[in-house]
């Protein structure tokens, strides 16, 4: 790993010097932010707090064409679009979101089958992380294993200092990305490193909310049938905000769109919060109510993922708390598990 420094005014130059990639940068969206393909380096708002929609949609797009189909008189042609996937850079991703990519890897790349579309996009993506200096009110990444200054999953790691950015090139992918722009980078000093450590400490001290996850998975299994889940989901309106905006949620649906002659088979995000999601053809539904559906969300993140992938399905970005229209608070719910009385059998 090599460490450089770049001054703030040269950052735009660095962004424009990246060629041959679709560069996703945080841009403004009203009073929120979102990741978009950079058209002009000036659009990039690296001082952003958190994007409304996580940048997972670069690697796992909301609408992803699996294949184009054409119906022939005696059969069909499918044209897989897998080879036309280009190269991407996610520039300025926070650690919570990049850790979520790591989680998605365990789901999409492990197991008996590998998802080829995800694998290809993942391989073609270079991740440039940006350390977080000011956590939001509902952030709790530190409690679930990530951290504002963690570097795992990043190819290049940036840290914003007072007079510039500290650039740490971690992998070969990162080296390749910045090969053209090495002239913009200057060496870094020990003072910068100590400043970085200082920022890290300062940031970690700023966290307001904390979550103690120890032993919670066992406890949750004990109270699976408790009325507690009904109470926490009382306010739920059954929208998909918490799941669609979650950086680790991966559920999808496959739809054929087009005419009977030609069209596309598209993979589109789905959400466990919708009743149709699990409904059987006989209209029996294993998760008939919002109690079961909300419970599924908490259990998937805090119990099943841990059991199957040894990794929590929650990265502590706080989006579901910030955006929930009815203030369902995952920290509160998981903390509250400890105080639930035993279920009457």
């Amino acid at each position, binding site marked *: 790993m090599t460490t450089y420094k770049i001054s703030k005014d040269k950052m735009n130059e660095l962004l424009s010097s990246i060629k041959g990639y679709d560069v996703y940068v945080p841009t403004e969206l009203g009073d929120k932010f979102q990741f978009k393909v950079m058209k002009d380096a000036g659009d990039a708002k690296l001082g952003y707090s958190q994007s409304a929609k996580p940048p997972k949609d670069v690697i796992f797009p909301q609408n992803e064409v699996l294949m184009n189909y054409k119906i022939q008189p005696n059969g069909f042609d499918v044209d897989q679009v897998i080879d036309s996937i280009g190269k991407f850079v996610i520039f300025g991703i926070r650690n919570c979101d990049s850790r979520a990519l790591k989680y998605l890897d365990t789901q999409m790349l492990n197991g008996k089958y590998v998802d080829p579309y995800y694998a290809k996009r993942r391989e073609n993506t270079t991740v440039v992380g940006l350390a977080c200096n000011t956590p939001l009110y509902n952030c709790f990444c530190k409690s679930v294993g990530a951290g504002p200054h963690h570097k795992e999953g990043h190819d290049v790691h940036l840290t914003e200092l007072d007079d510039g950015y500290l650039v740490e090139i971690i992998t070969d992918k990162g080296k390749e990305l910045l090969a053209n722009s090495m002239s913009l980078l200057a060496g870094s000093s020990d003072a910068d490193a100590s400043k970085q450590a200082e920022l890290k400490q300062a940031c970690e001290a700023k966290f307001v909310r904390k979550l103690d996850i120890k032993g919670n998975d066992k406890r949750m299994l004990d109270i699976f049938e408790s009325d507690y889940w009904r109470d926490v989901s009382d306010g739920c309106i059954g929208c998909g905000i918490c799941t669609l905006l979650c950086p680790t949620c991966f559920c999808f649906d496959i739809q054929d769109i087009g005419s009977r002659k030609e069209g596309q088979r598209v993979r589109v995000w789905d959400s466990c919060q919708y009743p149709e999601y699990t409904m059987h053809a006989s209209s*029996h539904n294993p998760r008939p109510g919002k109690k079961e559906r909300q419970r599924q969300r908490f259990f998937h993140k805090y119990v099943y993922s841990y059991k199957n992938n040894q990794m929590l399905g929650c990265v502590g970005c706080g989006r579901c708390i910030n955006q929930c229209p009815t203030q369902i608070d995952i920290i509160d719910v998981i903390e509250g598990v400890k105080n639930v009385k035993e279920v009457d059998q």
Partner: protein
Amino acid sequence: MSDNPYEPMPARVIGVSMEAGGIRPVKKIQVAFVNEEDKNNFKNVPGNCAILSMIGQGESMISITSPPTEKDFLEFAIMKVGVVTTALHELEVGDIVGVRGPYGNAFPIDDWKGKDIVIIGAGIGMAPIRSIYNYILHPDNRKDFGKVTLMYGARTPNDLSFKKELFEYEDQADPDVFLCIDWKFGPNGMMDEDAQEGWPRINMKDAGATVIPPGQTRFTCFVPQLVEMIKPSPENTIAITCGPPIAIKFITQNLSKLGFDDEQIFTTMENRMKCGIGKCGRCNIGDVFVCVDGPVFNYKQVKELLPEY
């Protein structure tokens, strides 16, 4: 055949037959792969599912009902309920569908050798287990197993699937076949409890005490009561059941009452599935993905699952 698990392989429909009529008709279609290579790569075992693609309409996970002893074609029994299945019902001989799979685990048939087999189906639930009895009853394999009992029930005589072959078995000495219906339609088209021609009524409250007249194979009752009445012996026996979740629940309860061990009872838990490869996330029961770890579970495993099915 490519590495892409989402790619459907073309298969030609070589036979269709209506299995059940009524409001939810069931159609059986036979398909054969167009490419020889696909055919050789497709190795199904009883219990597997495959995804049928109606290109332009969508995909559906359907159980394979033909036994692996049929090398040349695959059979699917499809109930007409939604967009894709309606499109599948419109298929005619010679049309092309997409098939991908096979997915899921299998019934541990090799462990069952030398044992008696009780097969209990309800409604469309007969489709996934049809592959087993066809496999077992195949002349090559028949000698490996003991006595085979088939029990099958549906709402009305019209709704009974695979009628033709079941009625044939009914006439033969082997296997033992018992059929039941919930009710029969009367002359006015309404449910008529008295018009039970050839389907003797069973007193629901006291099914276990009823004495079955020898040679009687058709009854009017629910499948769990049929099980209670036939009283299959649990000794050295494997019971396989599939049907609507509520039927499975009561069938397994009644089997346990008869003395069946949890490990003697097998069932398939078919949830809604989309991708078939454990990625799309909808078929999970707790931490288990049915499309990869299931759909076949024995009752002991089912009890360990979280009660969400």
